[in-house]
C-alpha cells in the first residue's frame, strides 16, 4: 500500500524535487555575486525590503552578505519552507480527500484493510515522499554552500533542513487530517493554508504586537525558526514539539476517518 501510494505520486515528487532544486541552484549561487560586493548587496537588500516587509523576511536581511545570513534569508526564511508546504499539501491530498473526491477511495476502503491502517499507510507514504524531496534538496544546498564557501557547518545545514522537513510534514499532516475528517480537498487546503500563512505572520510581522503574541505558541513557524538552527544547530525541543504535534494530528486523522461515512 505504501509503495503503491508512492508510485502514484512519483511524478509529483520528481517535479517538486526538480522545482525546489532549480530554485536552490539559482538563488544560492547568486551568493557569489553578493559576496564580492557586500556593501552594495547588503544595502540593496535592506533598501529593497523596507518597513514591515523587512519584518516579513525576519531578521536575516541584516547580515545578508554573510554566508549564513544569505542562506537563511534566501532559502530557509520564506521560500523553501513554503515550497515544501505546498509540496506536502499536494502529497497529503492524495492520501484521502483526493481519492475520495474522484471516487477511487471506495474500492480501497472495501479491501480487507482496517481504515486506521489505510490512513497510517498513506501518512507513511507522504512522510517518505517528503523525505525523498528533503534529502535531495539537502544534498544540493550543502553542495552549493560548500562551492560558494559560505562557511556553514554541515551539521547546521542538516539541522535547518531537518526543520524544513518537519515543518512540511506537520503542514502536510494538517492537510491530511482535515482531508480525512471532511473528505474535501478544498477544506483541507484552506485549513492548512490559513494555519501556515497566519502562523508565519504571527512570528514575523506580528511578533511585536502584544495582543497576538501568544499565538506564536500555535504557529509551526515558531518551532521551525526560533531556535535558529542554521546558526546554533539542532533545536531539539522545538523539533520534538513539531514532531509530537504531527503525531497527534496523524492520530486525529485516523480517528476521524475511522468513524465517518466515506464518499457522501
Amino acid at each position, binding site marked *: 500500500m505504501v509503495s503503491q501510494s508512492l508510485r502514484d505520486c512519483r511524478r509529483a515528487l520528481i517535479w517538486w524535487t526538480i522545482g525546489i532544486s532549480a530554485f536552490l541552484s539559482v538563488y544560492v549561487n547568486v551568493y557569489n555575486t553578493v559576496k564580492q560586493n557586500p556593501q552594495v548587496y547588503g544595502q540593496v537588500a535592506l533598501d529593497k525590503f523596507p518597513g514591515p516587509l523587512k519584518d516579513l523576511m525576519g531578521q536575516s536581511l541584516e547580515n545578508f552578505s554573510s554566508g549564513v545570513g544569505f542562506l537563511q534569508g534566501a532559502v530557509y526564511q520564506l521560500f523553501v519552507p513554503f515550497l515544501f508546504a505546498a509540496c506536502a499539501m499536494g502529497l497529503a491530498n492524495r492520501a484521502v480527500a483526493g481519492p475520495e473526491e474522484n471516487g477511487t477511495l*471506495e*474500492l480501497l476502503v472495501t479491501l480487507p484493510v482496517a481504515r486506521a491502517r489505510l490512513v497510517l499507510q498513506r501518512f507513511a507514504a507522504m512522510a517518505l515522499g517528503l523525505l525523498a524531496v528533503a534529502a535531495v534538496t539537502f544534498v544540493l544546498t550543502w553542495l552549493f554552500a560548500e562551492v560558494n564557501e559560505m562557511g556553514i557547518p554541515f551539521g547546521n545545514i542538516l539541522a535547518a533542513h531537518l526543520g524544513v522537513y518537519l515543518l512540511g510534514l506537520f503542514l502536510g499532516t494538517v492537510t491530511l487530517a482535515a482531508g480525512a475528517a471532511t473528505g474535501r480537498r478544498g477544506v483541507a487546503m484552506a485549513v492548512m493554508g490559513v494555519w501556515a500563512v497566519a502562523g508565519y505572520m504571527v512570528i514575523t510581522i506580528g511578533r511585536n504586537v502584544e495582543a497576538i503574541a501568544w499565538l506564536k505558541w500555535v504557529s509551526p513557524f515558531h518551532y521551525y525558526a526560533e531556535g535558529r538552527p542554521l546558526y546554533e544547530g539542532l533545536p531539539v525541543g522545538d523539533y520534538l514539539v513539531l514532531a509530537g504535534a504531527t503525531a497527534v494530528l496523524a492520530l486525529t486523522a485516523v480517528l476521524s476517518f475511522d468513524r465517518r*461515512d466515506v464518499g*457522501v
Partner: protein
Amino acid sequence: MTAVVQAEGLTKYYGRRRGLEDLTLDIQPGEVFGYLGPNGAGKTTTIRLLLDVIRPTRGLVRVLGADSRDPAVRGRIGYLPGELALEGRERARDYLEFLGRIRGGVPASRLDALAERLDADLNVPMGKLSKGNKQKVGLIQAFMHEPEFLILDEPTGGLDPLVQQEFLAMVREVRASGRTVLMSSHVLAEVEHVSDRVGIVRAGRLVAVENVAALREKAVRRVELHFDAPVPKEAFEGLAGVRDLRVEGAGVSCTIDGRPDALIKAAARFTVVHLVSAEPDLEEIFLTYYSEEDRHHGVAEPA
C-alpha cells in the same frame, strides 16, 4: 447455515435525506439475489452499508456471520461499486495486481483468464479506459479472488450484449460452486435469468421479496392474438386475470395478470394465426407493487 446477509431494521439517513428505511432481509448461502429498484431507491445505500463504507443510522447488519465492521470479512467479499472510478496513468493490470496483493495474492493466470473471458485489455492506463472497459476491470477485481460473497452494484451497465452474456455465465458458475451473489439493477431483464430471488426496493423501502418464478406469475404481460376470422367480444369477457381487453375484428389484445391459462383456453376455440406475448417489464411489475403498497398504506408517505 448462517445467512450471508442478515439485516434487521437497517436504516440510513443522509442528514435528513432518507437513503434506506427499516430494511429487514436475509440472503441465504448459495443463492443469487437480485436487488431491484429505480434510481434513487436505496440500492447503493444498502450495498455500502453491507461493506461498511457508510454506517447505519439505526439497525443491525451482519455479513457472512460477522460484524460488517470487521475488516477480515471484506476479504471474503468481492465488490463492484455502482459508480466505479479508476484513474491515473497506472496500467489496469498493475492496479489489479496491487489489489490482488492486498487480498493475499491472486495468480496471474486467473487474471489472464478473466481478462480473456471478458475481452478486456489490461495494458491500457486506467484513466484512458472506456466506460465498458472500466466495468470489465471492475468485474475482474470483484471475481479474481474467488470470494464467498459477490456484491455487484449495477454490474451490466456499459457492457455490450456479448460480454453481458459472459458475465451472466460467470455468475451462474459462482452459484454452481455454492457461493452467494447479490446484484442490483434497475432492469428486471438483467437479473431475472440468473436470480433465484429478487427484492424490490422503492423510495428506501423493501416492498417485496419474491422468487423469480413467482414474480413472473404475478407479472403483468401484454398479449395480442390474431385469428383467421373476426371473433365475438363476449368470448373473452370476464376471463380470470384478463384486463384492458380490446377486440377489433380478428384481433384481440389485453394484459394478463398472472397465469395466461384462462385466455389460452378461451382462444383455443378459434383458429389462432399469430400470438405475441411481450416480456413483462419491470415498470409494470413496479406499478402493480406500487398500487398494492398504496392500498396498504393509504396515501404515499412523505419523501
